[in-house]
């Protein structure tokens, strides 16, 4: 009877761990999406910077703020874009780190789940002949 109780316990444990794992996997997927978005933004910003670099100093640069175009200084726009690129790069690095962490966690979870499954199988095998 005790072995049956232990088995039930193990199964509950396994279920919890499986839930955790699926949560982790969801997080990782979300992270990947965010990362993709940032990568696209980074590409766009780099394009803008390239074009701004090609412009003359006296070119008229506007920034769309809400419904209106606001005239901006060329130097200011340039600095803004550069800052934005820096920010996005930092963000990408941060995301990479978190993804790595999450993947490590996922792997350890997978391993523990595998161990639990083996334990349960062993218990079931021990119970069957007895």
């Amino acid at each position: 009877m005790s072995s049956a109780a232990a088995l039930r316990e193990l199964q509950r444990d396994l279920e919890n761990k499986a839930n955790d794992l699926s949560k982790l996997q969801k997080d990782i997927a979300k992270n990947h999406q965010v990362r993709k978005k940032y990568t696209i933004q980074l590409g766009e910003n780099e394009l803008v910077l390239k074009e701004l670099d090609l412009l003359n100093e006296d070119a008229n640069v506007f920034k769309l703020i809400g419904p209106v175009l606001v005239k901006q200084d060329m130097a200011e726009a340039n600095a803004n874009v550069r800052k934005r690129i820096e920010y996005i790069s930092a963000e990408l690095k941060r995301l990479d780190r978190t993804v790595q962490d999450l993947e490590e966690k996922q792997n350890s979870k997978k391993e523990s789940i595998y161990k639990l499954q083996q334990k349960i199988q062993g218990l079931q095998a021990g119970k069957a002949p007895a």
Partner: protein
Amino acid sequence: MAQREKGTVTSLASLVSAEEAQKAAKRVEGSIAEHQKELDRIRHFISDNNNLINHIQKLPDELHHDIMVPFGKAAFFPGRLIHTNEFTVLLGEGYYVQRTSKQTVGILQRRGEVLDSQVESLKAMMLDLKAEASFFGSTAAEAAEGLVEIREEYVEEHPTERMSNEADSEKPDTSSSSKVHNVEVASEDEEYARIMSRFNELEKEELETEHVDEDTDFGCSINKHSFEQLKISEGHLLGNSSLKQNSESLGQSQQNSAERSTVEILNVQQVPEDNYLRRESSPQKGTSNSTKPLPQPVKEKAQAANASKSEISDVKATIETGFDSTKAFTGSIVEHAHGLLANAASETTSSQSTGLRTSKPVSRFKMQRGSR
């Protein structure tokens, strides 16, 4: 042959199940479809971009254009486009720049280049994926057909202690001799076994002559026979008539020591001629035929081994004996061979014996008995 036993045969289906491979193939196909969609999207962008460039290039041709101006979602009203050489271009991220038509076209062309590079990278990725998919597909098909995988360990024929230049000279020899096998003999394995056994025989006898063992007359005679052939073929190849005469006169003589000395000379000469000897395998056949009528006391021994193919195998034996004796003289000779059995034992220990030879002493003796 020992080589045949070394291989392991596993069915491909046991390694990769057909369903798994098919699943993998399907997944790769899916990602290919995704990439194709992306590629189509980018191609659409490119065509849009090109249309825009054409349009913008035409706009400043006129001072003004009569157009319908969109008003809200559903309504238009007639208007007139003036300042046809002034554009406000969206660079991205909410930044706009006032540009002329020419400058705008420049921006758009740069954008087109970026798109082109994206297309190129996508194409490369799709090629990779397609290769992967075809691999999975073929694997699935092979697994379903019940293909088997045969693995065989590569046996290093030549021990490492042998000198490297010798190993180098040996490699083309083995390949070319095997080529000769393929051409001339249908059952290559059988022939190979025969040649190897003869090879070992001759080698053993050579060792015996080193020790001037008078009691093993069988060894001596075979030895002489083979060396005659060796010398004659060499004589032909080198164009050295004196050597030939020497060998013919030696054919009659029973002086082991003298024979040994000539063999040594011959071997020294043979080393640089090795490649030539291999390449000229077809003229050698003629050479071996010409050796037949020469006085050879115990020739029937070799012929008894393989009556029909004696010529061919003789040539090969000559090649290989000559070669091996080269090794024996330039390499290391282990001098503890006296009887036939002792010889066999010594061969296993000697540095010139290869793994193949040591692996089958039984066949060697069988061949000896058969040839007797």
